[in-house]
């Protein structure tokens, strides 16, 4: 909750000033995330600017993308680390 004198951390300041262009809505992110996760697992260098930007700026969608990476990697018997690393390089 918002309270008087809540500290504004540097992390919050950076998040507040994040450049989130090009815009992608959460619904559009949800539509694309399954395809994006499979592409990242196949190639951690895979790039999709709008998805990468949205996941850097939306903690909820980013958490769900990370979780999907783990589930699919487990199912396929492959390491999730490279794909997770690609997301962690671009934190929100």
């Amino acid at each position, binding site marked *: 909750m918002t309270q008087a004198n809540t500290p504004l951390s540097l992390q919050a*300041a950076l998040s507040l*000033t994040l450049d*989130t262009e090009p815009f992608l809505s959460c*619904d559009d992110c949800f539509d694309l995330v399954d395809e994006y996760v499979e592409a990242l697992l196949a190639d951690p260098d895979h790039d999709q600017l709008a998805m990468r930007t949205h996941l850097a700026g939306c903690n909820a969608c980013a958490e769900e993308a990370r979780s999907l990476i783990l589930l699919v990697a487990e199912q396929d018997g492959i390491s999730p680390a490279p794909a997770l690393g690609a997301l962690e390089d671009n934190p929100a």
Partner: protein
Amino acid sequence: MSLVSADDRVPPSLDLTGADPENWVEALSTPGPGQDHAMDRLHQMMLRACHHQVRRMRSSLASVGSERLDEIANQAADEAMMAVLAKLSTFEGRSRFTTWAYKFAILQSATEVRRFAWAHREVELNDATQVMECGPSPASYAEASDLAAAVRLAIDVALTPHQRRITIALLVDEVPIDVLAQRLGSNRNALYKTVHEARTRLRAHLIASGHLTTSLPKAGTS
């Protein structure tokens, strides 16, 4: 540091056994024994994904017992299965069916956990900026402290009251977006768009005042 923790591992007791349908959409849509089997398999998948997600987020439910956590996951799995079946005709095969279906379970269970964790917490929304920069900061962080102070002032002058309320709640107070959406009768899309527009305004203000360059910070760059 490992990117995969013990909580990230899929519960082994929920591992799938047996064959999956070759064509999930057809199997789930065509009445008969094949449909019953496909429904069972889909429900197993939803359970697996929901238990995985609840386990990942259990630190936010520290005081909740394992029985209640199972209930949250099971309920989310049922609701996710309904969502998958309702959206079945929209599956385009751009990913595997299993990956497509998992995302519904993850969304449903993550949203449930966030809302449950905040069920008894109040969310206050203020349109007056009551945040202040951290301090004192070491001299080496003077520039960072300057940025935080400039951002605090920019929130006052560059944002509308609505943008201030939403942005401070989500990015400073760290209220989960699903929780805020539920309290306001809104949705994740609308709140993220508000934050996006607020960020654009803050950046423009800080670039004009010389506190920010056009190239920093850029989302999605390391």
